[in-house]
């Protein structure tokens, strides 16, 4: 099994490199966040005396040098201990663990929805290049890219929750309810808003990739051989068009996670994006670093997944 070994070695190398990237991100975040102006909210408030401030800084261990703190943190992190949140005294890992599933649900459905709508839209645009439909969809994409997320969020809440009373305005589930239907109703608006941040990119990539593929000689050959247009389109063209789209999706995952910060704040969605905002505003150093590490790990994993998928889609690419 030479191929299997090669793949195994490739994966081992990539995982090792990915781990290095995550450690690097943790170090960079740790130093930047600790050296940034301000301090934990408990200290940076008006109604705290200088004496209290000194006590609290000492109790949080923030009077120790940053490199010393980082080494202590890294020592804990390799054993799975990401430290204690300065804002709540809870373990960072459990705070992230509480919120991460909500973000995965939101980002996952937004990504799924974007692919489900974006790929057919891109294909249609490629097939009807320069038609009025193509121009209209291009315009819509440009519009989608330029609309601020918080504005779109508030407008959708005003329309669907305030005026039409069709959907809930915020949150992940109604208080005291736990039905799937209620959860889905809460998911609709934030999912749409988050999808709007990546959908135009997916449409554009699909369109240009499809146009590119359709001009290739093998497509002409396939058509000339008398294959049904549908077969040419779906079996030959689309499969090859997916290759650049796949790599684009890999690059979109970090952007998607960035988009959750604003989306979750507007919709009161209890996910990791909102947690990141609270952590940054409140200078909860261990929590900021913990979130950065988790996001870096997700980004590394998704780029690895894209590479593996790439090799499956494109026989010219070898994992080695």
């Amino acid at each position, binding site marked *: 099994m030479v191929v299997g070994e090669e793949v195994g070695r490739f994966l081992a190398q990539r995982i090792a490199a990915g781990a290095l990237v995550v450690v690097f991100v943790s170090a960079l975040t740790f130093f930047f966040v600790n050296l940034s102006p301000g301090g934990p909210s408990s200290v940076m408030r008006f109604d705290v005396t200088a004496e209290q401030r000194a006590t609290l800084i000492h109790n949080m261990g923030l009077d120790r040098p940053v490199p010393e703190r980082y080494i202590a943190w890294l020592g804990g992190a390799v054993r799975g201990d990401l430290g204690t949140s300065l804002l709540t005294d809870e373990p960072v890992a459990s705070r992230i663990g509480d919120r991460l599933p909500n973000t995965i649900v939101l980002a996952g459905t937004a990504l799924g929805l974007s692919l489900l709508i974006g790929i057919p839209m891109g294909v249609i645009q490629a097939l009807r290049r320069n038609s009025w439909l193509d121009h209209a969809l291009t315009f819509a994409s440009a519009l989608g890219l330029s609309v601020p997320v918080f504005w779109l*969020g508030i407008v959708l809440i005003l329309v669907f929750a305030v005026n039409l009373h069709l959907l809930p305005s915020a949150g992940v589930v109604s208080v005291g309810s736990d039905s799937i239907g209620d959860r889905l109703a809460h998911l609709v608006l934030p999912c749409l808003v988050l999808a709007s941040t990546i959908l135009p990119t997916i449409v554009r990539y699909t369109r240009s990739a499809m146009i590119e593929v359709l001009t290739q000689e093998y497509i002409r050959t396939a058509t000339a051989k008398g294959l049904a247009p549908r077969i040419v389109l779906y079996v030959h063209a689309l499969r090859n068009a997916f290759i650049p789209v796949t790599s684009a999706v890999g690059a979109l995952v970090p952007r998607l996670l960035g988009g959750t910060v604003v989306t979750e704040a507007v919709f009161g969605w209890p996910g990791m994006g909102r947690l990141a905002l609270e952590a940054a505003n409140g200078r909860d150093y261990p929590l900021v670093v913990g979130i950065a590490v988790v996001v870096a790990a997700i980004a590394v994993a998704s780029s690895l997944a894209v590479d593996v998928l790439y090799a499956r889609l494109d026989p010219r690419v070898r994992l080695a």
Partner: protein
Amino acid sequence: MGGGSRALRRGILAAVFVPMLVVAACTSSQPAGPGAQAVGAPVSGGTVTIPIVADPTLNPWSPNAFVESVFVNRVLFDGLTKPGKDLAPAPDLAASWTTSADGLSWTFKLREGVKWSDGQPFTSADVAFTFNDIVLKPELGAQNRGNFSAVKSVTAVDATTVRFDLSRKFSALTSYLAYNSGIVPKHVLSADPLKTTTFNKGIPVSTGPFKVEKYTSGQSVSLVRNENYFGAKPYLDKVVFTVVPDANTQIAQALAGDVSIMILDDKAAVARVKSANNLAVVSRPLVQYYWLALNQTDPRFTDVRVRQAFVQAIDRQAIIKSVELGYGSVANSAITPALKAYFDPSLSTRYPYDPQKAKDLLAAAGWTPGAGGVLMKEGKPFQFTMDVGQKGVLEPVNALIQQDLKKIGVVADLNTMEWNSYIQKVVVRRDYTASVNWWVYPSDPDVSPYYASSAAGKGFNIPGYQDAKLDDLLIQGQGASDLEARKAVYKQLQTYMADTLPYLFLWYPDEVDVLSSSLQGVPELGLRDAMHYIGEWWLAKK
């Protein structure tokens, strides 16, 4: 989220709400004020929903108990006293109190038969624990411990009697005990008073009319009736605090009928909310005032004529009109109109807007117009930087002040900063020349922590103003035991403050509350104070 985007968001909010307002104005009738419909006798039942911006910390002494926690903690944790409906201290866990002749020893008789929400008896040991083992322990850094610097120790005399021994006279003690000073249970917190997360972020043991049923991080905290509560059974079945960080989403939720009561921080949305026929809008006086601090380490600002000139150069009425939409009044001392017994309304006309007078005063202080109209003294222009924190109305207020000062030839450069960094620069390091902010303080005219010379530089005396006569008045106030004596001292204090301007007093804001038209029985207090009376709130049946 930077402040640039905050300002942008205010603009966008207006862009979104205003067109909808036009539509709404054509369709809705006049809003019903609270009590406008005949409401009859209170009825039991129903759930009240209140939005808060973040997860609360359910321990009033935790340094992480921020403003969102105040709403919940005032329902859960009774203090020895609470603010009365006139804001004077009223009995809560203490039924009565007496003071020794020298004013240095206060004895509180506790209410009999009070139980914690877990059924354990509440005793004087819990009070002694809360103070001796939390507040007075410097190594814990408990929130608000600075308010009790006069307290030496608390002794449990018997099961229902406690004695506070003071190091100096402190007639405001009962007012300060009414301010975020809930008693916490010794039998639960003795091991770790401030960091027990099952308590702070879970289900705490409390004495108030409601107790926590469920705490869902990032989503909500729901409260149900505390069957062990000592007072009258509350009308409401449940109180739910929903965590909604975005202010615009909170407003949208109110419009959608998902909120029972909330503070409307963005007064630009008042018109939109008023047009909704399921909502009522009320305004309430607050124990809060905005100020401009001029750092007294800068010799230009130690001249009282300069401070008096500035306060007359700033069109404070225009600021109130523009950023508060009229909800507020001009301030000339630290004592706010909400403190009705002490507030001196005659000072309101002390400094009318008068740029010419301002110029004359500055001229008398040696500042004369130079090139381009900029005031000069000893060859140097009157120019300085104002640090601006990105919060609430501070950015537009600073811009208005900058324009007003320009009109009298003073150049103020604005340095806008993210809130947390701002606090570090201005409050922690005192590395600033001029800055606008506000104080909210316990409902008592004893404002020593913010003005005493001893608090300059390290306490809450932000400008670092030091004045022996002011100190003397503050100490006289702390020593005056009866109401009439206190009134007399604090009238003098207000006049002296208006004359000397330790801070430049800007305005007293009013709070605008939005409430569901079915919500009744909420006393006419700022919402945070009204939380003490949630047992009296009730929902009219529709």
